[in-house]
Protein backbone atom coordinates (compact mmCIF):
# COMPACT_ATOMS: atom_id res chain seq x y z
CA UNK A 1 0.00 0.00 0.00
CA UNK A 2 1.50 3.30 -1.00
CA UNK A 3 -0.38 5.30 1.58
CA UNK A 4 0.91 5.75 5.10
CA UNK A 5 -1.79 6.52 7.63
CA UNK A 6 -0.42 7.98 10.84
CA UNK A 7 -2.24 8.86 13.98
CA UNK A 8 -1.25 12.18 15.46
CA UNK A 9 -3.25 13.13 18.51
CA UNK A 10 -6.81 13.67 17.48
CA UNK A 11 -5.94 13.63 13.81
CA UNK A 12 -5.21 11.04 11.18
CA UNK A 13 -2.60 11.91 8.59
CA UNK A 14 -2.85 10.00 5.34
CA UNK A 15 0.32 10.58 3.36
CA UNK A 16 0.08 9.36 -0.21
CA UNK A 17 3.51 8.23 -1.35
CA UNK A 18 2.98 7.65 -5.05
CA UNK A 19 0.31 7.67 -7.72
CA UNK A 20 -2.55 5.39 -6.75
CA UNK A 21 -4.49 2.85 -8.74
CA UNK A 22 -8.26 3.03 -8.57
CA UNK A 23 -8.32 0.00 -6.28
CA UNK A 24 -5.87 1.62 -3.92
CA UNK A 25 -7.94 4.79 -3.88
CA UNK A 26 -10.99 2.76 -2.85
CA UNK A 27 -8.97 0.90 -0.25
CA UNK A 28 -7.80 4.21 1.19
CA UNK A 29 -11.37 5.37 1.39
CA UNK A 30 -12.51 2.29 3.32
CA UNK A 31 -9.53 2.29 5.61
CA UNK A 32 -9.92 5.95 6.55
CA UNK A 33 -13.61 5.51 7.25
CA UNK A 34 -12.72 2.57 9.46
CA UNK A 35 -9.84 4.23 11.31
CA UNK A 36 -11.78 7.39 12.09
CA UNK A 37 -14.07 5.25 14.22
CA UNK A 38 -11.28 3.18 15.75
CA UNK A 39 -9.19 6.15 16.90
CA UNK A 40 -12.13 8.49 17.45
CA UNK A 41 -10.26 10.98 15.26
CA UNK A 42 -11.63 14.47 14.86
CA UNK A 43 -9.67 15.46 11.81
CA UNK A 44 -8.00 13.98 8.73
CA UNK A 45 -5.24 15.43 6.62
CA UNK A 46 -4.75 13.87 3.22
CA UNK A 47 -1.34 14.83 1.89
CA UNK A 48 -1.34 14.57 -1.90
CA UNK A 49 2.00 16.29 -2.51
CA UNK A 50 3.45 13.16 -4.11
CA UNK A 51 0.68 12.88 -6.68
CA UNK A 52 1.62 13.92 -10.20
CA UNK A 53 -1.95 13.59 -11.37
CA UNK A 54 -5.27 14.12 -9.69
CA UNK A 55 -7.93 12.91 -12.09
CA UNK A 56 -11.69 12.87 -11.87
CA UNK A 57 -11.70 9.50 -10.17
CA UNK A 58 -9.34 10.62 -7.41
CA UNK A 59 -11.29 13.86 -7.08
CA UNK A 60 -14.52 11.96 -6.63
CA UNK A 61 -12.89 9.59 -4.16
CA UNK A 62 -11.47 12.48 -2.15
CA UNK A 63 -14.89 14.05 -2.00
CA UNK A 64 -16.38 10.75 -0.90
CA UNK A 65 -13.74 10.40 1.81
CA UNK A 66 -14.48 13.88 3.09
CA UNK A 67 -18.22 13.29 3.21
CA UNK A 68 -17.84 9.84 4.80
CA UNK A 69 -15.45 11.17 7.41
CA UNK A 70 -17.82 14.03 8.17
CA UNK A 71 -20.59 11.54 8.85
CA UNK A 72 -18.22 9.77 11.23
CA UNK A 73 -17.47 13.04 12.98
CA UNK A 74 -14.17 14.17 11.43
CA UNK A 75 -13.15 17.15 9.31
CA UNK A 76 -10.82 16.64 6.35
CA UNK A 77 -8.27 18.94 4.79
CA UNK A 78 -6.43 18.16 1.54
CA UNK A 79 -2.82 19.33 1.64
CA UNK A 80 0.02 19.81 -0.78
CA UNK A 81 -1.52 20.14 -4.22
CA UNK A 82 1.40 21.15 -6.42
CA UNK A 83 1.19 24.05 -8.90
CA UNK A 84 1.19 21.77 -11.94
CA UNK A 85 -1.55 19.60 -10.54
CA UNK A 86 -3.56 22.69 -9.59
CA UNK A 87 -3.35 24.03 -13.15
CA UNK A 88 -4.31 20.68 -14.63
CA UNK A 89 -7.26 20.27 -12.27
CA UNK A 90 -8.55 23.72 -13.12
CA UNK A 91 -8.20 23.06 -16.82
CA UNK A 92 -10.09 19.81 -16.56
CA UNK A 93 -12.66 21.60 -14.42
CA UNK A 94 -12.12 19.27 -11.50
CA UNK A 95 -13.60 21.12 -8.62
CA UNK A 96 -12.77 20.21 -5.06
CA UNK A 97 -15.69 22.20 -3.67
CA UNK A 98 -16.61 21.99 -0.85
CA UNK A 99 -13.33 20.43 0.17
CA UNK A 100 -10.89 22.40 2.23
CA UNK A 101 -7.39 22.68 0.91
CA UNK A 102 -4.17 23.79 2.54
CA UNK A 103 -0.71 24.56 1.26
CA UNK A 104 1.05 21.83 3.24
CA UNK A 105 0.81 19.64 6.32
CA UNK A 106 1.48 22.49 8.75
CA UNK A 107 -1.26 24.62 7.28
CA UNK A 108 -3.62 21.68 7.21
CA UNK A 109 -3.14 21.04 10.92
CA UNK A 110 -3.72 24.75 11.66
CA UNK A 111 -6.92 24.59 9.61
CA UNK A 112 -8.06 21.45 11.44
CA UNK A 113 -7.36 23.09 14.81
CA UNK A 114 -9.63 25.91 13.80
CA UNK A 115 -12.34 23.59 12.51
CA UNK A 116 -12.36 21.31 15.52
CA UNK A 117 -12.35 24.22 17.93
CA UNK A 118 -15.50 25.25 16.10
CA UNK A 119 -17.00 21.88 16.96
CA UNK A 120 -16.27 22.45 20.62
CA UNK A 121 -17.91 25.83 20.52
CA UNK A 122 -20.89 24.32 18.76
CA UNK A 123 -21.10 21.65 21.41
CA UNK A 124 -20.56 24.10 24.22
Amino acid sequence: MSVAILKQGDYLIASIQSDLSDTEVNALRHELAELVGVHRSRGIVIDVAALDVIDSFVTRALRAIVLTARLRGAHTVIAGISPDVAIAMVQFRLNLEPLRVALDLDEAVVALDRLTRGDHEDEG
Partner: protein
Amino acid sequence: MNDRSDRPAERGDAPSDKQRARPGSPPMQAVPSSGNEGHDPSAEADRSPAPEARERRTSDPVLEELVAHLRDSRTQMREEWARRISDAELLGVMSDDEIFSEATEVYDNYVDALETGSVETLETYARELSERIIPRGVETDEVLGVVLLLRDVLARALFTRYEGDPAQLNRVLDAYEPAANRIAVVVGVSFVEERERVIQEQQQALRELSTPVLQLRERLLILPIIGALDSARARQLTEQLLGAIRERRAQVVVIDITGVATIDRSVANHLVQTVEASRLMGARTILTGLSSEIAQTLVDLGVDLSMMRTVGDLQGGLVEAERLAGYRSGEIEDSTRIET
Protein backbone atom coordinates in the same frame (compact mmCIF):
# COMPACT_ATOMS: atom_id res chain seq x y z
CA MET B 1 52.01 31.70 -63.11
CA ASN B 2 53.48 28.45 -64.33
CA ASP B 3 50.29 26.53 -64.64
CA ARG B 4 48.94 28.95 -67.11
CA SER B 5 50.81 27.15 -69.84
CA ASP B 6 48.75 24.01 -69.60
CA ARG B 7 45.53 25.88 -69.37
CA PRO B 8 44.65 26.25 -73.08
CA ALA B 9 43.81 22.58 -73.27
CA GLU B 10 41.18 23.13 -70.66
CA ARG B 11 39.92 26.41 -71.91
CA GLY B 12 37.33 25.09 -74.28
CA ASP B 13 36.11 22.63 -71.73
CA ALA B 14 33.05 24.39 -70.45
CA PRO B 15 31.75 21.78 -67.97
CA SER B 16 34.98 21.58 -66.03
CA ASP B 17 35.13 25.36 -65.91
CA LYS B 18 31.66 25.45 -64.50
CA GLN B 19 32.57 22.87 -62.01
CA ARG B 20 35.51 24.85 -60.79
CA ALA B 21 33.46 27.96 -60.65
CA ARG B 22 31.28 26.55 -57.95
CA PRO B 23 33.23 26.36 -54.74
CA GLY B 24 29.96 26.72 -52.88
CA SER B 25 28.36 23.57 -54.13
CA PRO B 26 28.63 20.34 -52.18
CA PRO B 27 31.00 17.73 -53.62
CA MET B 28 28.21 15.40 -54.62
CA GLN B 29 26.76 18.04 -56.89
CA ALA B 30 30.07 18.76 -58.51
CA VAL B 31 29.89 15.69 -60.72
CA PRO B 32 31.04 16.68 -64.19
CA SER B 33 27.96 16.76 -66.30
CA SER B 34 27.56 17.97 -69.82
CA GLY B 35 23.92 18.82 -69.24
CA ASN B 36 24.78 21.39 -66.64
CA GLU B 37 25.82 24.33 -68.80
CA GLY B 38 22.62 26.27 -68.40
CA HIS B 39 22.96 26.16 -64.66
CA ASP B 40 23.57 29.49 -62.97
CA PRO B 41 26.51 28.98 -60.64
CA SER B 42 25.82 32.01 -58.49
CA ALA B 43 22.26 30.93 -57.85
CA GLU B 44 23.63 27.57 -56.85
CA ALA B 45 25.99 29.20 -54.40
CA ASP B 46 23.24 31.35 -52.96
CA ARG B 47 21.02 28.46 -52.29
CA SER B 48 23.48 26.11 -50.73
CA PRO B 49 25.90 27.49 -48.20
CA ALA B 50 25.82 23.88 -47.02
CA PRO B 51 28.17 22.80 -44.28
CA GLU B 52 29.68 20.00 -46.35
CA ALA B 53 30.85 22.62 -48.83
CA ARG B 54 33.54 23.64 -46.38
CA GLU B 55 35.44 20.48 -47.01
CA ARG B 56 36.08 21.40 -50.54
CA ARG B 57 39.27 23.38 -50.71
CA THR B 58 39.84 25.04 -53.97
CA SER B 59 42.79 24.10 -56.10
CA ASP B 60 41.56 26.33 -58.86
CA PRO B 61 44.50 28.18 -60.38
CA VAL B 62 42.28 31.10 -61.41
CA LEU B 63 41.03 31.51 -57.88
CA GLU B 64 44.56 31.15 -56.54
CA GLU B 65 45.73 33.92 -58.78
CA LEU B 66 42.79 36.03 -57.76
CA VAL B 67 43.52 35.50 -54.07
CA ALA B 68 47.19 36.32 -54.58
CA HIS B 69 46.20 39.49 -56.36
CA LEU B 70 43.81 40.50 -53.59
CA ARG B 71 46.50 39.85 -50.98
CA ASP B 72 49.00 41.98 -52.89
CA SER B 73 46.69 44.93 -53.18
CA ARG B 74 45.31 44.55 -49.66
CA THR B 75 46.22 48.02 -48.42
CA GLN B 76 44.93 49.80 -51.45
CA MET B 77 41.67 47.80 -51.53
CA ARG B 78 40.76 48.27 -47.93
CA GLU B 79 41.44 51.96 -48.13
CA GLU B 80 39.27 52.20 -51.17
CA TRP B 81 36.57 50.20 -49.42
CA ALA B 82 36.68 52.26 -46.22
CA ARG B 83 36.56 55.43 -48.31
CA ARG B 84 33.53 54.17 -50.22
CA ILE B 85 31.81 53.28 -46.94
CA SER B 86 32.32 56.80 -45.64
CA ASP B 87 31.22 58.30 -48.95
CA ALA B 88 28.02 56.29 -48.88
CA GLU B 89 27.48 57.47 -45.28
CA LEU B 90 27.10 53.92 -44.10
CA LEU B 91 27.91 52.91 -40.52
CA GLY B 92 27.42 56.48 -39.35
CA VAL B 93 27.62 55.39 -35.72
CA MET B 94 31.20 54.17 -36.11
CA SER B 95 34.33 56.30 -36.33
CA ASP B 96 36.56 56.15 -39.42
CA ASP B 97 39.28 54.35 -37.46
CA GLU B 98 36.83 51.72 -36.31
CA ILE B 99 35.51 51.26 -39.80
CA PHE B 100 39.04 50.86 -41.10
CA SER B 101 40.07 48.27 -38.54
CA GLU B 102 36.86 46.28 -38.98
CA ALA B 103 37.27 46.59 -42.73
CA THR B 104 40.76 45.11 -42.46
CA GLU B 105 39.46 42.15 -40.47
CA VAL B 106 36.59 41.57 -42.84
CA TYR B 107 38.83 41.95 -45.87
CA ASP B 108 41.30 39.34 -44.62
CA ASN B 109 38.52 36.97 -43.67
CA TYR B 110 36.88 37.61 -47.01
CA VAL B 111 40.02 36.73 -48.97
CA ASP B 112 40.55 33.64 -46.80
CA ALA B 113 37.01 32.57 -47.50
CA LEU B 114 37.58 33.07 -51.22
CA GLU B 115 40.72 31.00 -51.05
CA THR B 116 39.48 28.07 -49.01
CA GLY B 117 35.81 28.12 -49.93
CA SER B 118 35.16 27.79 -46.19
CA VAL B 119 33.01 30.52 -44.72
CA GLU B 120 33.17 29.24 -41.17
CA THR B 121 35.70 31.75 -39.86
CA LEU B 122 34.01 34.57 -41.69
CA GLU B 123 30.66 33.48 -40.32
CA THR B 124 31.98 33.50 -36.75
CA TYR B 125 33.56 36.86 -37.27
CA ALA B 126 30.40 38.26 -38.84
CA ARG B 127 28.43 37.06 -35.84
CA GLU B 128 30.82 38.65 -33.37
CA LEU B 129 30.84 41.84 -35.36
CA SER B 130 27.05 41.87 -35.39
CA GLU B 131 27.04 41.37 -31.65
CA ARG B 132 29.23 44.44 -31.28
CA ILE B 133 27.44 46.74 -33.67
CA ILE B 134 23.77 45.82 -33.22
CA PRO B 135 23.50 47.51 -29.81
CA ARG B 136 24.90 50.65 -31.43
CA GLY B 137 22.01 50.82 -33.85
CA VAL B 138 23.55 49.57 -37.08
CA GLU B 139 20.81 48.62 -39.51
CA THR B 140 20.53 45.62 -41.80
CA ASP B 141 20.68 47.74 -44.95
CA GLU B 142 23.99 49.27 -43.77
CA VAL B 143 25.58 45.88 -43.26
CA LEU B 144 24.36 44.58 -46.61
CA GLY B 145 25.44 47.84 -48.25
CA VAL B 146 28.93 47.51 -46.81
CA VAL B 147 29.34 43.92 -47.97
CA LEU B 148 28.04 44.76 -51.43
CA LEU B 149 30.45 47.71 -51.56
CA LEU B 150 33.38 45.39 -50.92
CA ARG B 151 32.10 43.13 -53.66
CA ASP B 152 31.88 46.12 -55.94
CA VAL B 153 35.36 47.40 -55.03
CA LEU B 154 36.92 44.02 -55.70
CA ALA B 155 35.01 43.47 -58.91
CA ARG B 156 36.11 46.86 -60.22
CA ALA B 157 39.70 46.04 -59.37
CA LEU B 158 39.37 42.84 -61.34
CA PHE B 159 37.94 44.68 -64.30
CA THR B 160 40.82 47.11 -64.24
CA ARG B 161 43.40 44.38 -63.99
CA TYR B 162 42.07 42.15 -66.76
CA GLU B 163 40.85 44.91 -69.01
CA GLY B 164 42.97 43.69 -71.88
CA ASP B 165 42.03 40.03 -71.60
CA PRO B 166 38.24 39.52 -71.67
CA ALA B 167 38.55 35.74 -71.74
CA GLN B 168 40.67 35.65 -68.61
CA LEU B 169 38.39 38.23 -66.99
CA ASN B 170 35.48 35.93 -67.66
CA ARG B 171 37.18 33.02 -65.98
CA VAL B 172 38.17 35.12 -63.01
CA LEU B 173 34.63 36.37 -62.65
CA ASP B 174 33.34 32.81 -62.95
CA ALA B 175 35.46 31.95 -59.97
CA TYR B 176 34.87 35.15 -58.07
CA GLU B 177 31.14 35.77 -58.43
CA PRO B 178 29.72 32.64 -56.78
CA ALA B 179 32.14 32.82 -53.90
CA ALA B 180 31.47 36.52 -53.41
CA ASN B 181 27.72 35.97 -53.53
CA ARG B 182 27.97 33.25 -51.00
CA ILE B 183 30.07 35.40 -48.70
CA ALA B 184 27.59 38.26 -49.00
CA VAL B 185 24.77 35.88 -48.10
CA VAL B 186 26.68 34.47 -45.13
CA VAL B 187 27.46 37.89 -43.71
CA GLY B 188 23.91 39.13 -44.26
CA VAL B 189 22.37 36.03 -42.74
CA SER B 190 24.74 36.11 -39.76
CA PHE B 191 23.72 39.69 -39.08
CA VAL B 192 20.01 38.98 -39.36
CA GLU B 193 20.29 35.86 -37.20
CA GLU B 194 22.16 37.77 -34.56
CA ARG B 195 19.47 40.41 -34.62
CA GLU B 196 16.75 37.84 -34.25
CA ARG B 197 18.59 36.30 -31.35
CA VAL B 198 18.74 39.70 -29.65
CA ILE B 199 15.03 40.24 -30.28
CA GLN B 200 14.18 36.85 -28.84
CA GLU B 201 16.25 37.49 -25.76
CA GLN B 202 14.50 40.78 -25.25
CA GLN B 203 11.09 39.20 -25.69
CA GLN B 204 12.01 36.62 -23.10
CA ALA B 205 13.18 39.33 -20.72
CA LEU B 206 9.97 41.29 -21.31
CA ARG B 207 7.86 38.25 -20.59
CA GLU B 208 9.68 37.63 -17.35
CA LEU B 209 9.65 41.25 -16.29
CA SER B 210 6.04 41.74 -17.15
CA THR B 211 4.65 39.50 -14.43
CA PRO B 212 6.35 40.29 -11.16
CA VAL B 213 4.98 38.60 -8.06
CA LEU B 214 5.60 40.91 -5.14
CA GLN B 215 5.48 40.09 -1.49
CA LEU B 216 3.86 42.91 0.43
CA ARG B 217 3.70 41.38 3.87
CA GLU B 218 4.34 38.03 5.41
CA ARG B 219 2.23 35.61 3.34
CA LEU B 220 0.56 38.35 1.29
CA LEU B 221 1.43 38.57 -2.41
CA ILE B 222 0.55 41.17 -5.02
CA LEU B 223 0.43 40.42 -8.73
CA PRO B 224 0.06 43.60 -10.76
CA ILE B 225 -0.78 42.85 -14.38
CA ILE B 226 0.05 45.52 -16.92
CA GLY B 227 -0.54 45.38 -20.65
CA ALA B 228 -2.29 42.92 -22.87
CA LEU B 229 -2.84 39.38 -21.70
CA ASP B 230 -2.64 36.61 -24.24
CA SER B 231 -3.00 32.95 -23.45
CA ALA B 232 0.76 32.32 -23.37
CA ARG B 233 1.30 35.14 -20.93
CA ALA B 234 -1.69 34.13 -18.87
CA ARG B 235 -0.34 30.60 -18.56
CA GLN B 236 3.07 31.84 -17.55
CA LEU B 237 1.49 34.20 -15.08
CA THR B 238 -0.48 31.39 -13.49
CA GLU B 239 2.63 29.25 -13.20
CA GLN B 240 4.64 32.05 -11.65
CA LEU B 241 1.91 32.89 -9.20
CA LEU B 242 1.43 29.28 -8.09
CA GLY B 243 5.18 28.82 -7.72
CA ALA B 244 5.34 31.95 -5.58
CA ILE B 245 2.40 30.82 -3.46
CA ARG B 246 4.20 27.63 -2.62
CA GLU B 247 7.60 29.21 -2.14
CA ARG B 248 6.43 32.06 0.07
CA ARG B 249 3.58 30.19 1.69
CA ALA B 250 1.07 32.83 0.71
CA GLN B 251 -2.33 32.99 2.35
CA VAL B 252 -3.75 35.83 0.34
CA VAL B 253 -3.01 37.02 -3.18
CA VAL B 254 -4.13 40.33 -4.65
CA ILE B 255 -4.27 40.39 -8.45
CA ASP B 256 -4.49 43.94 -9.73
CA ILE B 257 -5.64 44.40 -13.32
CA THR B 258 -5.79 48.20 -13.39
CA GLY B 259 -3.18 48.09 -16.14
CA VAL B 260 -5.15 45.74 -18.37
CA ALA B 261 -6.94 47.71 -21.06
CA THR B 262 -9.37 45.14 -22.37
CA ILE B 263 -10.42 41.70 -21.46
CA ASP B 264 -12.04 38.98 -23.52
CA ARG B 265 -13.59 35.66 -22.76
CA SER B 266 -10.40 33.64 -22.88
CA VAL B 267 -8.51 36.08 -20.67
CA ALA B 268 -11.42 36.17 -18.23
CA ASN B 269 -11.44 32.39 -18.12
CA HIS B 270 -7.70 32.39 -17.53
CA LEU B 271 -8.18 34.72 -14.60
CA VAL B 272 -10.90 32.50 -13.16
CA GLN B 273 -8.62 29.50 -13.59
CA THR B 274 -5.75 31.28 -11.90
CA VAL B 275 -7.95 32.13 -8.93
CA GLU B 276 -9.27 28.58 -8.78
CA ALA B 277 -5.79 27.04 -8.99
CA SER B 278 -4.57 29.36 -6.24
CA ARG B 279 -7.43 28.17 -4.10
CA LEU B 280 -6.33 24.58 -4.62
CA MET B 281 -2.97 25.65 -3.26
CA GLY B 282 -4.65 27.01 -0.17
CA ALA B 283 -4.43 30.71 -1.01
CA ARG B 284 -7.31 33.13 -1.30
CA THR B 285 -7.35 35.58 -4.15
CA ILE B 286 -8.70 39.09 -4.41
CA LEU B 287 -9.11 40.65 -7.82
CA THR B 288 -8.83 44.45 -7.93
CA GLY B 289 -8.87 47.26 -10.44
CA LEU B 290 -11.63 46.17 -12.78
CA SER B 291 -12.60 49.18 -14.86
CA SER B 292 -16.28 49.82 -15.45
CA GLU B 293 -15.74 48.75 -19.04
CA ILE B 294 -14.16 45.45 -18.10
CA ALA B 295 -16.80 44.82 -15.45
CA GLN B 296 -19.55 45.32 -18.02
CA THR B 297 -17.76 43.13 -20.53
CA LEU B 298 -17.45 40.35 -17.98
CA VAL B 299 -21.13 40.56 -17.15
CA ASP B 300 -22.08 40.59 -20.84
CA LEU B 301 -19.85 37.60 -21.53
CA GLY B 302 -21.52 35.74 -18.71
CA VAL B 303 -18.21 34.71 -17.14
CA ASP B 304 -18.82 32.88 -13.89
CA LEU B 305 -17.31 35.17 -11.30
CA SER B 306 -19.03 33.67 -8.30
CA MET B 307 -15.69 32.27 -7.14
CA MET B 308 -14.03 35.67 -7.32
CA ARG B 309 -13.55 38.14 -4.56
CA THR B 310 -13.40 41.51 -6.25
CA VAL B 311 -12.63 44.92 -4.81
CA GLY B 312 -12.70 48.21 -6.69
CA ASP B 313 -9.10 49.31 -6.38
CA LEU B 314 -5.77 48.09 -5.10
CA GLN B 315 -6.07 50.11 -1.91
CA GLY B 316 -9.37 48.49 -1.04
CA GLY B 317 -7.95 45.14 -2.05
CA LEU B 318 -5.10 45.47 0.42
CA VAL B 319 -7.48 46.38 3.22
CA GLU B 320 -9.56 43.34 2.37
CA ALA B 321 -6.44 41.16 2.19
CA GLU B 322 -5.34 42.24 5.64
CA ARG B 323 -8.79 41.66 6.95
CA LEU B 324 -8.74 38.15 5.50
CA ALA B 325 -5.32 37.37 6.90
CA GLY B 326 -6.20 38.76 10.32
CA TYR B 327 -9.64 37.23 10.25
CA ARG B 328 -8.16 33.86 9.56
CA SER B 329 -5.80 33.85 12.50
CA GLY B 330 -8.52 34.36 15.11
CA GLU B 331 -11.73 32.98 13.74
CA ILE B 332 -13.27 30.15 11.90
CA GLU B 333 -13.23 30.29 8.15
CA ASP B 334 -15.52 27.63 6.90
CA SER B 335 -14.97 28.04 3.22
CA THR B 336 -12.96 30.16 0.90
CA ARG B 337 -15.99 30.85 -1.22
CA ILE B 338 -17.18 34.42 -1.23
CA GLU B 339 -20.59 35.63 -0.44
CA THR B 340 -21.79 37.56 -3.44
